[in-house]
Structure formats: C-alpha cells, structure tokens
C-alpha cells in the first residue's frame, strides 16, 4: 500500500489527530500526526490487516529549534511497505506517549532519544539514560547544548 493511501485511511479514521502528508521531498514522504493520537494510530498501524507494520526499523529524536520531534520508520514484513511517521511537541513540555508496548524494540530507542534529545516518553517503564553516564547533565544532541567543562573532576572538552 502506498503512503498516501495509508494517510487517507488514517485521516478518515482518526480525523484531527492526523495532521498532514508531505510528499514534496526528493526522497522519502512522511505523515505527521499529533502526540495525543500517536499511540492509537501506532496500534492501528500494527494490527490492521491492510497495514501490518510489525517492524519498527528506527526511532529517531530530532531537535527542531522550538520543538522536538520523533520520527518513526515502519516496515511491514508481510506487505513489504514502509511508512515514515512524525510527531512534534514543544520543547517546554516534550511529552510523547511511548510505543514500547507495541514494538518492544522501541524501549532502547526511546531511551536513546531521551538521553540525547530530551524527549520524555510517557508510560515508558524505565526511562533512564542509555549511552551517556547515568548522572550526565543535559541532552547532547540538542543544538544549543554546551559541553560541561568537568565531569567528576575530569576535564571533558579537548
């Protein structure tokens, strides 16, 4: 199934929660959804027979300036089709519902996005840092991040 057909079906079912479809890209097109409807939409994408997106290829956090975004790359083992799903939330309140109960692989990906960008995944069972030390401060992949000078008395920047 093509991405625009999937978008039409999602739009018909979820209405407001599905915001836009962008195919004016040189490479991949994507669907933007709202954070409120994300969990329901993902559930439908995995379980509906026409979609069957059972494979979460990648989950990336993005610093978009005012907002933080999360990008989901989905793939269906049976139908061999793909979908890119995007959600954006304001940096002051970066709350996105977790999808780890839908795709278990999202557990570590979400911890990574929390660690590096600072997206707060609501409902995640163990949202702690994964790549940086557990007591690290700040979220290094943010554009305005400044490297701390010292970490436990050790010089960080070189």
């Amino acid at each position, binding site marked *: 199934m093509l991405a625009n057909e999937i978008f039409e079906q999602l739009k018909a079912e979820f209405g407001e929660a599905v915001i836009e479809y962008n195919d004016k890209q040189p*490479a991949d097109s994507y669907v933007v959804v709202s954070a409120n409807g994300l969990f329901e939409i993902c559930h439908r994408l995995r379980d509906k027979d026409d979609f069957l997106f059972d494979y979460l290829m990648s989950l990336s956090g993005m610093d978009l300036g005012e907002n933080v975004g999360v990008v989901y790359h989905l793939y269906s083992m049976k139908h061999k089709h793909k979908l890119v799903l995007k959600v954006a939330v304001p940096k002051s309140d970066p709350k996105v519902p977790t999808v780890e109960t839908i795709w278990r692989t999202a557990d*570590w990906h979400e911890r990574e996005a929390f660690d590096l960008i600072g997206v707060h995944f609501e409902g995640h069972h163990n949202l702690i840092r994964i790549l940086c030390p557990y007591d690290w401060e700040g979220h290094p*992949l943010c554009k305005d991040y400044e490297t701390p000078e010292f970490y436990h008395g050790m010089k960080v920047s070189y």
Partner: protein
Amino acid sequence: MSEKKRLDLEYSQLESDRMRINVGPQHPSTHGVLRLEVEIEGEIVTEVVPHLGYLHRSFEKHCEKMTYPQIIPYIDRIDYIAAMNNEWPYVMAMEKLMGIQIPEKVEFIRVIMAELNRIANHQIAVATFGLDAGAFTPFLFFFRDREYIIWILEKMSGARLLYNYFRIGGLAGDVYPGFKEDCLNIVKQVRKTNAEVMDLLIYNRIFIQRTANVGILPADVAINYACSGPVLRGSGVKYDLRKDETYSIYNRFDFDIPVGTGEVGTLGDCWDRNMVRVNEMEQSCRIIEQAIAQMPDEGDVQSAIPKRIKPPVGEVYMRAENPKGDLGFYIVSNGTDKPERVKARGTSFVNLSVIPEISKGYMFADLILILGSIDIVLGEVDR
C-alpha cells in the same frame, strides 16, 4: 567392605540466595566493553540488565559539524569489523537524496567488496563463537583466512580495517591488476576452510550439546524486537534486504537466503544462528564468483562523483544488509554542505536489546554463548 554411603539430597530444600554480579566491562567474552548486570539463582540466570555507553563517541553529534564526505571515515568506526558494508547505506542514502546515477562498474566493485567483508565478518563471528564454546582451532583457521581477505581490501583501499573507500557517487580507486584472481583464490580457500570447520566445529557432538536448545528466540519475538540479519534468519524468518528490498545490482545474482531450520535442536537456538552465518559465507562466495565473471573491465569509477556535495532540503532513510543485519541511516539535509541530523540505526544496538528476553532461565555459562551467537560489535552499540 562398608556399604557405599548414599547421599539423598532434596534439592528443592536447599536454600540459595539470588546474587547480582557484573560481567564486564573488561571481560574477554563480552566482545568489547559491555557490562551485563546478571542476577543468578545458583547457576540459573534470572535477570540480565545490559549497561551500555562505555564506547560512546558521539558519532551523531560529530556528524552535524562535518561535511558529508568527511563523515565517511567516522562511519567505518561504527562497526569496525565490517567497515565496507557500513559505508554502503550511507553513500546510497546520499545518492538517493541527490539523485546520482552511478556507473555499473562501481556497483560491481561495491558488491564484491561488501561480500568479501561479509565473509571476513562471519569468520570472526563463527570463530569467536567457537572460542566461547571452548573450540580454539577453528579460531586460528578463520583468522588465517581472514588475513588474506584483509590483504585484498588493503590493496584496494590502503587500510586494513577502516577503509574510507566508498565515495558519494563512486569509489576512491579502481581495482588493481590481478584483483580477480585474488578474489577467486580467496573463494576457494574459504570453501576449503568451511568444509574443515563443518567437521571440526559445527557438527561436533560437544559443540552441538553446548549450543542446541540454548537461547531460543521465537520468530514473533524477533520481529517485535526488530532483530535483523542472522539473528532473525536463525529464527526461520526469510528476510534479507538483498532480496526483499533489492538495492544495487543484487537482483542480477543467483543466491539463496539461508535460514535456521532447528536441525539439531529447536528453531531459533544458538546453533541455528551460527549455522546461518556459516551458510551465508557460501552464498557470498557464489555472489563474488558471479560478480567477478560479469564485471566490466572498462569504466571510470570516479566519473559520477559530484564536485560539490550539497544535497537539496529533504530527508532520507536508507538501509542495507550488513553482515550483522540492517544498518540504517536517517539523514536530514538542510540544504547546506553539512547535515542537520544523521541517525545511525545500529544493528548490534537493536539485536543486543533482545538479550534480557532470551537469556532468562539458562545456565550462566550459556549466557556467554547467547551473547556470542548474537554477534555484537560494541562500536555499533554505543556509536
């Protein structure tokens, strides 16, 4: 003569406290700096908590400060065992974003390089897996052969492990004279060693008893955890991007996708995952032979490299079949010569996340085997 004393122990009445111990980060069997916090009851593993990040080199942050061609050497260092394969999805993603058509000869050389590196990677994987199980000889056999493969890659790129050979739109250099003969000799040697290892290791009775029915990963769990590569195929899922999402010129070659069969134990156990790697080496040999036969002699490998690499605003996600599984790159371009965001979806990172799920209830010694059968590289886990 006194009667032999009988020991009637009620094992269920013995008390054993649960104990939490650390495996790693400095431990030869963790294949890198990985710390596993393991809870054991007697000798049975009840919980595994991996702690990552000891090799975190902030690859993604570095990418945002560098131009697109400057990123390629850093990509080698993600999975330093199979660096040629690493570079491929990145350059493919850039070519897709910029709409570059690359010459046919480049495609052939890329396929041969990637398959040679796949063999080298699987040789390390099978060798160290045998080492974890206590078999030392196959390790030496495989490392001897791998050296010959590395010599070819060194002659092509100038480096033993971190090649920096692929370019966006082409390659760093053409093949050297005698390249085809070298490749065909390697293929012969790989087959010979594999036949020896089959007797020595794979169908060895001790090895089978050690690895069969250990670390069983059911197919649905593997898909839900987004496992890929031999870990997923070992569970019987016929999924290989070279066939399922054909990229480059893989549709021109005749090869099979080996999957786990549960031949000596249960489908999806450590033995199956290891067997998939051994069989894949043979398939890679077949691809190399066909590619060598079809490869055109004439052609410039640098003709399609753009003078200035400045992709349009947009984004692309590209993945390729690495020896360890799908390696994906999500690249967001903002129209300048530096990327807005590069995300590497590390194969080992995702495959490792299944460890807590599949190692519960096995012996502690089996945990090391399960870890070895997943074939992780910590450079890719921590990036």
